[in-house]
């Protein structure tokens, strides 16, 4: 789960990392009031869950409260990469001397949380990783010990950061404590600024939380903003499906993440465009399949549905029953192509005999068929 910048900064502040004074505003008037309280030049930043806000015009400076109101008026309601800006962060503008990067990520290879620090901050760290990888210092952290001050100081030195060594190291130590404290998946400060007065401030921050651990953080779980997600993704979540909305027109439904990914690959390979990823999971009963079809039928992009089932713990006849129920209730109005194999395959085929479902023996044949159908060739 993604947090907004202002929420991430609230967490960092709680763990003792200095952040610029500021507050979130929902109206231009509120923005003016906050700017007045700050009494200095402010920066007004759109709070939306996408990168590249600055380039999209969602980050602007304002010298006076009146200007803050004017700028906030422009940014609020702005559309950034498909998302409407509903709130802005109004914060004191920092007097930047140096811009660094500090981040914590989960690294599969070392199976550790890794601290990454770079003297090239304020830019996209992935770009730095591509073009100048030696400018990033990576340090895997022992989960038993955490990040100790001496390790943090060495990271600062190795990365060549200039500024108060102890203060910089302290930010790294606290960032790790925050990461563990909130069960983050990713936590980064970019830029980590050294001001002209030598102060160290987290000017921008990003935290993604581990969804699996949200049960331990009910206060953070409440921050989920359903309006920022696709409505079908929210509905799928309520059903307990793994669902991802994609940009094509073929609805995909299968059991098991690997099989569904494979099905998307096949459809793509034969020239089709999947409308979604939908995994009904293991051991699904008829009603689960019925609900899945109901969900797909709510997507206006879906012009045909490909159901790919390999029965293991999931019984193919249960899947067939769900499909038949959805057909009988008139829920599905687009063609359905199916491929079923495995447990209770024969029973499923018998049940589906004479039903308006196109059955194919292999995944690839089914993929070709559904692509031909939605492209209007059949």
């Amino acid at each position, binding site marked *: 789960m993604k947090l907004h910048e202002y929420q991430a900064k609230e967490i960092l502040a709680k763990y003792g990392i200095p952040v610029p004074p500021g507050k979130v505003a929902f109206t231009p008037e509120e923005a003016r009031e906050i700017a007045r309280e700050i009494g200095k030049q402010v920066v007004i930043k759109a709070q939306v869950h996408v990168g590249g806000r600055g380039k999209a015009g969602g980050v602007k400076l304002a010298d006076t409260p009146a200007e803050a109101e004017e700028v906030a008026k422009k940014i609020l309601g702005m559309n950034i990469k498909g998302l409407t800006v509903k709130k802005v962060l109004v914060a004191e503008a920092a007097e930047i001397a140096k811009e660094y990067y500090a981040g914590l990520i*989960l690294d*599969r*290879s070392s*199976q*550790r*949380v890794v601290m990454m620090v770079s003297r090239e901050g304020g830019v996209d760290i*992935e770009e730095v*990783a*591509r073009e100048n990888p030696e400018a990033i210092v990576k340090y895997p952290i*022992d*989960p*038993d010990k955490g990040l100790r001050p001496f390790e943090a100081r060495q990271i600062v030195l190795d990365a060549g950061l200039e500024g108060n060594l102890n203060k910089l190291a302290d930010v790294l130590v606290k960032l790790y404590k925050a990461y*563990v404290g909130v*069960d983050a*998946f990713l936590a980064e400060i970019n830029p980590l600024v050294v001001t002209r007065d030598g102060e160290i401030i987290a000017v921008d921050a990003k935290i993604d939380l*581990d969804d*699996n*651990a949200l*049960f*331990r953080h009910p206060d953070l779980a409440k921050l989920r903003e359903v309006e920022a997600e696709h409505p079908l993704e929210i509905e799928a979540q309520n059903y307990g499906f*793994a669902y*991802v909305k*994609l940009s094509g027109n073929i609805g995909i439904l*299968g*059991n*098991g*993440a*690997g*099989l*569904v*990914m*494979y099905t*998307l*690959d*096949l*459809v*793509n*390979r034969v020239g089709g465009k*999947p409308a979604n*990823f939908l*995994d009904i999971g*293991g051991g699904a009963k008829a009603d689960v399949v019925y609900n899945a079809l109901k969900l797909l039928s709510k997507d206006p992009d879906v012009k045909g549905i490909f159901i790919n089932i*390999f*029965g*293991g*713990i999931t019984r193919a006849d249960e899947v067939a029953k769900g499909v038949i129920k959805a057909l009988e209730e008139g829920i599905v109005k687009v063609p359905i192509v199916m491929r079923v*194999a*495995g*447990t209770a395959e024969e029973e499923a085929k018998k049940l589906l005999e004479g039903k308006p479902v196109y059955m194919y023996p*292999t*995944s*690839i044949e089914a993929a070709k068929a559904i692509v031909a159908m939605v492209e209007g060739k059949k």
Partner: protein
Amino acid sequence: MILIDRNTRVLVQGITGREGSFHTRQMLDYGTKVVAGVTPGKGGQEVHGVPVYNSVKEALKEHEIDASIIFVPAFAAADAALEAAHAGIPLVVLITEGIPTLDMVQAVKEIKDLGIRLIGGNCPGLISAEESKIGIMPGHVFKRGKVGIISRSGTLTYEAAAALSDAGLGTTTTVGIGGDPIIGTTFKDLLPLFNEDPETEAVVVIGEIGGSDEEEAAAWIKEHMKKPVVAFISGRSAPKGKRMGHAGAIIMGDVGTPESKVKAFQEAGVPIAETIDEIVELVKKQLG
């Protein structure tokens, strides 16, 4: 075959729960030697004739145990794995999905330090065909034969095993290593075992987008593998930055792309199957 056979004595942690009880029945039916179960607070009960204990240590007082399979809910699953490892059970299979990631970072480190092998979490377990299954896969699709399988996916593994079995090639041991970003055992940990296993003549590696386990496996194969390997990668058309069902199936920046995995396998001389049926063809071709 590797890791388990018909003599492997198995403990089920979380045996009194819905999943634990169901799969205990399935494993017993397959012929797996399930000797004991653990559910804290429910010691003294029986599940399908299997005695239940309050702790792993208590179970070990009464039974010899070679492996444990865990069906404990996510919030307590890593703790259960640590309990098994600290009690000295050499093989721990963690089925549970949705375990907090930092719990796994801690547990994987601690369990490795103890010298215990952890498989999973979020995995279907493992099966030595017609010998023993410590997992949740449909046993009947695995016919005894000569191909070892290591996979990050569940259903696709069953597909591949069924296709190999139908083609008369069959399988030795199949290990589902799990779809989470932090897992106890990866491809490169298991390849050496298959390399030394006299029964296994070829290995199928079923990978997917996310992370770089496939790249590391390819590097190992290039240096050490004596037997033919065929690879498969799912999620090749997946968009960047989206989690495709599995917590670990996500392309982050330049890491975890299918292109990088394809390239790594190609450089290691490992042919890549485009479809499940092609896995069979390529294995046949490799075996001559």
